[in-house]
């Protein structure tokens, strides 16, 4: 009974609610930490998660297995809905201390983050794939992917030439592909 995510999406497209429940159980635990990392509030993350899966229920028929795995489909949407949520929250309140800025300030390649990663490794814990990238590459990818900054914004923030930022992003993604292929 090797059901795949693609099978589930096919059944969901046909209105199969059980398939949806299984699909949720498989993918919600994967996308929830990502959403939470981006929006930072558990209540907001829960809202985004619900909208994400509601959308999946409605648009499962448009999923095309030739264009990528269901996981990639869900993760891409999760990231983009989470970023949308943070932007709209930031728009709604001018006094709001934007999580995106917090994330940008806190996350990337900072000593503390690196220490935590090394500590995790010392304890024999799995390091997440991004933690295995060289610091400068990891930094730009995290600023873009988690904090929603564009390459121009990243260059300004890091006081680096735009070309450097672009190169780091490209090399970082190449490295990430190697890392995840080496340890699936």
């Amino acid at each position, binding site marked *: 009974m090797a059901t795949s995510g693609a099978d589930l999406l096919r059944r969901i497209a046909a209105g199969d609610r059980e398939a949806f429940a299984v699909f949720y159980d*498989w993918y919600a635990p994967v996308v929830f*930490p990502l959403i939470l990392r981006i929006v930072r509030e558990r209540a907001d993350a829960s809202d985004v998660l619900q909208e994400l899966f509601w959308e999946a229920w409605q648009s499962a028929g448009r999923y095309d297995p030739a264009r*990528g795995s269901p*996981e990639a489909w869900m993760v*891409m949407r999760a*990231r983009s809905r989470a970023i949308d949520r943070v932007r709209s929250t930031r728009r709604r309140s001018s006094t709001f201390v934007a999580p995106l800025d917090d994330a940008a300030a806190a996350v990337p390649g900072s000593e503390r983050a690196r220490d935590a990663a090394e500590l995790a490794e010392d304890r024999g814990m*799995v390091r997440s794939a991004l933690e295995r990238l060289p610091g400068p590459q990891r930094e730009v990818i995290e*600023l873009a992917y988690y904090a929603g900054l564009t390459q121009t914004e990243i260059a300004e923030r890091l006081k680096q030439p735009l070309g450097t930022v672009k190169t780091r992003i490209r090399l970082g993604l190449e490295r990430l592909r190697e890392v995840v292929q080496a340890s699936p």
Partner: protein
Amino acid sequence: MSHEPFDTLAAAWAVGALDGEERAVFERHLADGCDVCEAELRSSAEALAAAARSVPPMIPPSQVKEALLRRITATGSARRETLPPRRLVWAVGSLVAVLAGAGFTATFVATRYEARLGQVAREAAALRASVQRDEAALREQIAVYQGAVDLLRDPATQIVLLRGLGPSPRANGRVIWHPVAGGHLFVANLPAPPPGKAYELWTIGDAAPQPAGVFQVDGSGRGTYRIGPVAGGQPVKVFAVTLEPEGGVPAPTGPMVMASVK
């Protein structure tokens, strides 16, 4: 084949960092149809998905799934031809989520949800059965206590003390006894009976001892037993406990281990 500048643009686009004129250029290029860039974006999306999977999974609050299933039930039947609800499957589904949560936080389950799921479902079914058994036992126990409390409220109810005798001097017990409704026996410090044996309670009035039921004690020597009313409402003068064969006997044969204090 060099595909610059699109390789670099594709990478920035994949992490959502492409902006301004470059973004417009790249998206036009994509719209024109470029297999190289499409493959590139696909591969980046898979790598980012794998990165998301490489962090410890987190079970979201259960209300999210509940709300989704409600929403689907509310609108789904109007919109689609749907199967009849299968609540059991859903219930198992939520249990699976709960169990998976415990498992996921303990160990980093990065892949292979499929294989785990079958196992988790079996564990969930076993847990479910065990929870049902526990629930039934608890209900039974609550009914006993409730009955005892009800009896205590009745002015006709008496409390009779029992004392250990002969082989079990440390044993003690109480009977909450109502002349019409019957009562409850509570014992403590009564040693577990030898294999094949059990304790039997007797009510003694003016005639021969009447069997009032067989009971067991737990590992700590405690036992609780609901005593039915005595046939014909005969008054009880003495409660006694003897050690008897497991199935119980109609008249006492074994040693008396407890009796009510005069």
